[in-house]
């Protein structure tokens, strides 16, 4: 049993690509033909009722150090400088391992749950009762490229649709005037691997993420290259519509031609809607402060978080924000000087993330919005290049919030050093299964037929992390 709400006809038609991105209901009503198909982005119900309607993925790219943020390891202080032994082979990606290195940050207990969070994230820590922390995540690759693909697409190999593609494929989108799946990259550059991280893989282009810029026009080619005022553009569109109508008159039943005509009206509307959606200047002073949008350090990320809320509020289904871009110090990839590296990136993000949670809650949107804070892997308990940490795929911390997630929960544990999972390990497939579950999907049944196989985001694995579910 695949997507039960698609008839075989529709499936065949989908396989043939077709109409996308359109407010189609009325158009099709006019067509009034049984064989007509719906837009792949029309809103669709999930497998079962669910609270979460939208997802915001905050991707701290480069690899956040778990023992410096959400997973305190006092043993590292007690045994500082000692060799890491007794945990099997010590594999480092860039050679020259040092001794155990304690965290440079203090941990404090927060909330009723008493969750320990380091001084890097005091504002997120203050919201500990809202978040469900998973300390026992593990990845499969200690190389950024494959690990990013793994987190984003469920496979370490390229060519697979990203989480956002799966979610928009499954649910469509609520606002046909905006892209369904929006990605904000860091001003210092995109993540390793580039656009395939939000690519549609083998799915139609309708499901690919659209990159939004945080300054200037949000979408490349959103505005005419030439100075064209609205009136001139309207006139231009009217001419185009007449030419197209003449052409379509011979084939009034061709939904593809009709879809293409409609896509111009949508593009036209998107020009204003996309600009409006990211107009953070329209927000109140209080809200802007909450997100720290005028802060010299946190402002950029704060603006992106605020834009993410505005997009979700307007029915956008999936937003992904990258903290960190390019290589090494401009991302969380702290191979050296972790004090500066994590200090900077946490200062950029702690306030805005907390602001986002508080704002979503205040507006009654937190219940329907699932927030996932994550990277692609963790870091080593031993030092590298004197004061940094190397990659560690064996364990890392992520947290979820809102969208049917139970707050104040801690799942799993790592060993005394934070080198490997000690109990209740959770895979990336488990995380994906959980995300889909919170959106109302049985991850084993959300499939896309490709090259002779019913493909899944969770491949042939994945168990929902039940501990984080509110009900």
């Amino acid at each position, binding site marked *: 049993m695949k997507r039960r709400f698609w008839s075989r006809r529709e499936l065949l038609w989908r396989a043939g690509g077709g109409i*996308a991105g359109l407010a189609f209901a009325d158009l099709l009503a006019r067509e009034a033909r049984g064989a007509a198909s719906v837009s792949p982005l029309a809103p669709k119900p999930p497998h079962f009722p669910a609270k979460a309607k939208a997802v915001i993925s905050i991707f701290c790219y480069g690899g956040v150090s778990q023992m410096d943020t959400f997973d305190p390891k006092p043993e590292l202080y007690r045994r500082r400088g000692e060799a890491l032994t007794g945990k099997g082979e010590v594999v480092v990606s860039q050679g020259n391992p040092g001794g155990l290195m304690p965290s440079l940050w203090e941990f404090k207990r927060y909330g009723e749950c008493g969750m320990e969070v380091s001084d890097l994230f005091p504002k997120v820590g203050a919201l500990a009762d809202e978040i469900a922390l998973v300390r026992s995540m593990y990845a499969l690759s200690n190389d950024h490229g494959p690990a990013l693909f793994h987190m984003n697409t469920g496979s370490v190999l390229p060519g697979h649709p990203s989480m956002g593609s799966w979610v928009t494929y499954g649910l469509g989108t609520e606002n046909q005037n905006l892209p369904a799946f929006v990605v904000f990259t860091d001003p210092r550059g995109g993540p390793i*691997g580039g656009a395939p991280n939000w690519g549609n*893989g083998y799915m*139609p282009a309708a499901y690919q993420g659209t990159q939004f810029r945080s300054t200037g026009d949000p979408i490349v080619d959103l505005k005419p290259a030439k100075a064209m005022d609205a009136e001139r553009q309207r006139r231009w569109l009217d*001419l185009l519509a007449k030419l197209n109508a003449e052409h*379509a008159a011979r084939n009034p039943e061709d939904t593809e031609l009709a879809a293409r005509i409609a896509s111009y009206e949508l593009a036209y509307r998107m020009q204003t809607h996309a600009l409006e959606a990211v107009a953070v200047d329209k927000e109140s002073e209080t809200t802007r402060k909450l997100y720290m949008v005028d802060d010299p350090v946190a402002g950029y990320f704060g603006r992106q978080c605020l834009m993410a809320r505005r997009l979700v509020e307007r029915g956008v289904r999936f937003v992904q924000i990258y903290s960190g871009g390019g290589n090494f110090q401009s991302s969380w990839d702290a191979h050296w000087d972790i004090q500066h590296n994590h200090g900077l990136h946490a200062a950029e993000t702690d306030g805005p993330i907390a602001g986002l949670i508080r704002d979503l809650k205040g507006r009654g949107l937190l219940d329907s919005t699932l927030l996932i804070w994550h990277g692609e892997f963790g870091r080593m308990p031993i030092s590298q290049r004197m004061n940094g940490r190397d990659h560690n795929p064996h364990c890392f911390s992520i947290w979820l919030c809102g969208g049917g997630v139970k707050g104040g929960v801690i799942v799993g544990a790592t060993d005394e050093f934070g080198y490997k999972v000690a109990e209740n390990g959770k895979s990336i497939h488990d995380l994906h299964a959980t995300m889909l579950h919170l959106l109302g999907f049985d991850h084993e049944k959300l499939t896309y037929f490709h090259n002779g196989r019913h493909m899944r985001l969770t491949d042939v694995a994945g168990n929902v992390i039940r501990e984080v579910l509110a009900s």
Partner: protein
Amino acid sequence: MRGVLVSLFLSWVAQGVEDSPRQVSEILAANCLTCHGEKIKMSGLDLRTRESMLKGGHKGPAIVPGDPNRSPLFRHASGLDQPVMPPGKKLQSWQLTVLSRWIATGAPLDKPIAASSDLSQSMAALEERPITEEERQFWSFLPVKRVTPPVPANRAWVKNPIDSFLLKAMEEKNLRPSAETNKRSLVRRAYLDLWGLPPTPAQVQEFLGDSRPDAFERLIDKLLDSPHYGERWARHWLDLARYADSGGFEYDRDRPHAWRYRDWVIRAFTNDLPYDEFARLQIAGDEIAPGDPDALIATGFLRHGPEANIKTELTRMDELDDILSTTTSVFLGMTVGCARCHNHKFDPIPQKDYYRMQAVFFSTKHEDVPLVPREEVERHKAENKRIDALVQPFKQQREELEKPYREKLIAAERAKLPDYIQEALRTPPEKRTEGQKLNVRQVEKTRNFTDEDVIASMSLEDRARHDELSKKIQELEKLRPAPLPSAMAIGEDGPEPLPSYFLHRGSPDSKGSLMRPGVLSVICRQELVFPSAPATAKSSLRRKTFAEWLTSPENPLFARVMVNRIWQHHFGEGLVRTPSNFGKTGERPTHPELLDWLASEFVARKFSMKQMHRLIMTSNAYRMSSDDVAASRAVDPDNRLLWRMPRQRLEGEIIRDSILAVSGALDRKVGGPGVHPYIDPALWQGSSGRTWPGKQDHDPTTWRRSIYVFSKRSIPLPLLEVFDKPDTISSCARRNRSTIAPQALILMNNQFIHLQAEQFAKRLKREAGLDPAKQVELAFELAYARPPSSKEKQWALEFLAAGPEALVDFCQALFNSNEFVYIP
């Protein structure tokens, strides 16, 4: 009541408890340990010890001591849970009782279970998956059967046998073929189909003016006799070959020699290289025609897959999987890749077939072969050495200049290290603990400072000297000779093939038997003999044998799959609508007899692709109008019986090419290295040194056909990407055809499109003069190959009356219109 049951149960359990560990060991050894034991741990589960059972596999612990009904081991063995284990046979009820009892009493096990002695035998048995006679009878595995074309009632419509097959099927459903399209649509269709460029007004007139009965045949011949045909159809092949100019993955490094394969494919189509030879060269060019540079370039087919950053045994297996999956889906239309980890779930493709075919390719390695005489290679090397020697002293001086500054920076950094590391540094080497040794070595080896840091700390004088040295080095580097032209090819290390094995669950850690090379056993009843290579051979010649089998008449899939692809690109859909999946999960042919007739023609015509184009395009079917016919649509809304010509949306590449052709800007140069049109840096900058040396939109050197646009895996050209350009990660047999708003945004707003609209407007003024009516007429002729209707002309003139800038807007409207982006 409950108490009674419990005591009954306990007394039942009491019997033979002593014995149960031994019995359980025997049962598990005989039935389970092959897959959940020492060599193979399917689902991560090892059943050899009590601890490993408690630890369990990916799905959690296998046993809950004391509770058989909550123990997955018992649940799966007894059929309480799916799948029932072991697969294919059921444990007997006494065995289940023993298992249950043993778990209920706490699952005692004092020593690891030893594998039964016939383990290697049972492992080998696991590799076998016989093929039944019934499976061999699946339509696509049967030999190509040539039937006499049927005789439809309306014989007048039949122009060649293709029409007979199609019409007969239509008549059975009371369908009538659509009327012939007009000549202007036909000429536009033929140009877009074979060249991917719209005809010029002169080319249209030439066809309209040719009143000879075979005018269309002559047009087809003319079109086929042009490199533009090669450029258009090579693009279809490059989709299949997952061709790209970079390696993908993390660094997505450029592949500076990849384009020679692209040019070779263009030449192969242009010169009508027979398809069997075309296939053989791509798989085994180095073995078939040693020393022939073109044959070496052709083997690039095996190298176009993405390339992992880190090389491990597993990434090599992935690379081989890419080769195998691509080769078999492209040439056989089979999803053999599905058999990497288990027997194919739907098709009779044993996992062993996968590993026997892997053995064909296992010894291959990457080789970049210079395409110049050996003396030149030597000269090139010597010249590089000479420059190395010139540069060296300057580099050394620079290093010496930097040294004290670097050391100072490091000393300052070390002073900041925490006490425990300072202590380690102070401790005499012989007294250091293991951890201290690690830390000291790390401190000594750490050089965290970038050149910029070091330069910034220099005195003004030294900085000037540093600049001077760097400039000198740069100047010398400029003297280096350009890289030699090379073939991105495949080679092997000699006649002796490397050993390769069956891999249980596809894991290199679970090696099974040594594999002999083989082919798809469902269509090759007797084991194909791969002769050993002579001692003097440069390779095992396994690929040559494989390629010969692949292209032989005994392989019914080879010709069928390719004629279906040719058909697909003429008619929008194949006769089999899943062109790389002729298996059970693929679609059945809509016209099986026609498919076989075409396949037999293809073989009879010595695999000439041009002859197949001619055959297909000279049918009456090809000339049908694409307009809707309500009555026919009611019977066959999907047009499976081909009662009309399907309207096909142009690919992004052809839209771009058409725009350039119509604006008059197209540079028709054939071949050469890829070009880099402008891409907004916001879309690519910053990542891992990935760069896109994009030229400006107004740079005419980028106004080439889109097949020459550099294909960088992580930085697709947005105009092509939004129109469903394949991701080049795996073979693409049929592009998605989305219609989405970002396509409209690009064609409406993009700088390049606007610039070409300006070129188009200039051309209209140049060629039609300043009379708006004449401009409109020429514009329609150029864009649509037809004059405007009076209504259209009136709209256009009204639009142009708005002012001087309206002409450019009008031109851009034509680029955006539906008529422009569809093959009529």
